[in-house]
């Protein structure tokens, strides 16, 4: 028996699916576009209702993988549930609200769950994927817990398929093992665009797609534009118009007041940057 409330929720979901501009439908599958040329290999983008694994290319420092997850979260819509094992917080540091905001991910969309062990992470992830509210669930166990086997990933993938949410399994300090993931990534940091010694550019990540059930594999170096919330292919020889003079670290803060919409914020950013 369905209550009127559930009927309404289902109706709303199907309307949202019809309306959604970011969910391209290819072969009936909704997905989250990451930008070209990634989307070409992914048949439209990161598939929703599926599990994706993200490994880290650096030994010891897993921030590149965490950063990639935060960028995907910034691209997605709706609430995000991020489940971390305590060990991940002590090894990589706790997620920082202002840092998320700096990457373009609204911290108010995040719900953080701290689990003591790998089992807890999996349990919380399954529970989160069972609900319809979160559109993205990030599960971050540390190392290689024994419970995280093929069966466990299959369960996560099934749950994600049921609700249509995007499930990201971050695997810091782990080596790939067989899993039910649709895609598998190895993410590492790459030197940023900078002609001078004392200046940093926007974050640059090397995304290595080492498993892809939907298309070809590939390796891309992408630059993240936090303000526009988009990935762009990174060109080693930076184009001159994009280069900026050295800036002092105390940059003028953007005007605060009314919450800005995406377009307005982009315009403000241009003004400050230029």
């Amino acid at each position: 028996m369905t209550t009127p409330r559930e009927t309404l929720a289902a109706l709303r979901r199907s309307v949202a699916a019809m309306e959604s501009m970011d969910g391209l439908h290819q072969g009936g599958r909704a997905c989250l576009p990451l930008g070209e040329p990634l989307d070409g290999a992914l048949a439209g983008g990161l598939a929703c209702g599926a599990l994706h694994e993200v490994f880290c290319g650096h030994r010891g420092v897993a921030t590149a993988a965490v950063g990639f997850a935060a960028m995907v979260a910034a691209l997605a819509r709706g609430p995000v549930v991020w489940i971390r094992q305590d060990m991940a917080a002590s090894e990589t540091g706790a997620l920082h609200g202002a840092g998320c905001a700096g990457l373009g991910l609204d911290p108010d969309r995040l719900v953080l769950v701290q689990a003591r062990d790998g089992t807890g992470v999996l349990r919380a992830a399954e529970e989160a994927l069972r609900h319809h509210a979160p559109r993205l669930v990030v599960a971050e166990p540390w190392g290689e817990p024994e419970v995280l086997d093929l069966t466990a990933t299959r369960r996560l993938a099934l749950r994600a398929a049921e609700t249509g949410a995007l499930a990201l399994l971050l695997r810091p300090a782990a080596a790939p093992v067989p899993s039910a993931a649709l895609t598998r990534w190895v993410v590492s940091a790459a030197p940023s665009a900078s002609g001078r010694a004392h200046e940093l550019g926007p974050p640059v990540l090397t995304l290595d797609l080492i498993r892809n059930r939907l298309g070809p594999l590939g390796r891309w170096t992408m630059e993240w534009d936090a303000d526009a919330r988009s990935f762009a292919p990174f060109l080693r020889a930076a184009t001159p118009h994009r280069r900026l003079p050295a800036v002092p670290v105390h940059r003028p803060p953007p005007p605060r007041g009314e919450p800005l919409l995406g377009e307005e914020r982009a315009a403000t950013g241009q003004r400050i940057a230029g």
Partner: protein
Amino acid sequence: MVAETRAQARRIVAVDEEAARCGLFPGLALADARARLPDLAVAEADAAADHALLRALAAFAERWTPMVAPAGRRGFLIDATGCAHLFGGEAALLADVHARIGGLGFSVQCALAGTPRAARALARWRPGQIVPAGGEEAAVRDLPVIALGLDAETRSSLSRLGLDRIAALLAQPRAALAARFGDTLLTRLDEITGRRDAPISPLRPMPLHVAERRFADPMADPGTALAVLADLARELCRLLERQGKGVRGLEAGFFRSDGQVRRLQTATARPTRDAAHLAHLFRERLASLADPLDPGFGFDVIRLAVTACDDMPEVQPRLDGPAEADDLAPLVDVLATRFGADRVMRFAARDSHVPEAAARTLPAQREAAGRPAAPWPAAAPAGLPPERPLTLFARPEPVETLAEVPDGPPLRFRWRRVLHEVVHAEGPERLAPEWWAEGVAALSRDYFRVEDQAGLRFWLYREGVYGRETARPGWFVHGLFA
């Protein structure tokens, strides 16, 4: 028999029936008792254990009513106002109390009266009595004045005057008694005769609403217990619907037939009347218990109490209104119930330039109570890196550095035994301690954003201004950028 050392003498505190038959009584010196019965079995008095036992018994007594308060060293009070009929009348209630507590192996004396003091005195001196409304004065007339619970000085002066019964006190003019012994005596006298009522202060806060099931036979199946809880939750939700309220906190009480009581709490992020959701929370709560609910010989009462509720007006959902599907509250409740409320967090922006203070997280369930609305920093403008790191270490990690100049960025540094060559660096950004808030002499920090040869980015700081605050500034990694 139990003894304790009081005023440099070993004295008897309590005796069992056998010892009482032999003529021993509490207050007798242990040496005298030993002289009469050389092979006495004596146990040391343990006031703390007695107190704990009494508390446990009082918790057990909550099966009759939540208004239970421990009284003195060996008794407790039950406020049976308005609930005696549930047990088949006052006499049946008293018999039930006697039978159940007696069944646990205690010798019980109980009485029922209109005021707590009268009930206490009658239980001590006339056990088993049930005083009809207004009959307190007649019932306590021939009790000794000790029943008033007065201090030793007043007691001895009353006995010197020959006033050893309450009836004798009642015969005296009140003004004279007040002048001689103060107000306390009159207050106590009024309380015991029912002229003045003194409310009892219950052991635990009173729940707002209660629903319960009693079983004729103890019930030992946890699955049935959950079904009963779901049933009770539905009952409470119907009740709250009429008042336009929603549940914020619930407590389930499992009363075992052998006297053990187990209580489980759960809370919700926002008021709800969804009984299925509440039942699911208890299922999660039971599953997450470190020591599982042990039915023993079975539960005979299961009670569900609303400990907190909030206004929850009935709102007509609209198709174009805020989507309920985006409502995280039910998920937050489930996760908080399973992992603990302090493990399901949300970011709370705070207006502070000290990174640790700005990086606060709050339990997601408490968020609804109203959050301080400080704005988040804007996303990094195009072509620039974010100003703040994605992750922050709870405790900044010290690094060994090599710097060109004392107040410049490092050339290279060693963190977690790995050497990083600094390729790019930006800074310093000086953050001074909030001296007005902390009250401790913290050093100011110069923060640098640096990138190493592999593209890893760190948020480093140098603690202390070289030459002014310290001669040997230390370097730390405080966070990592994506």
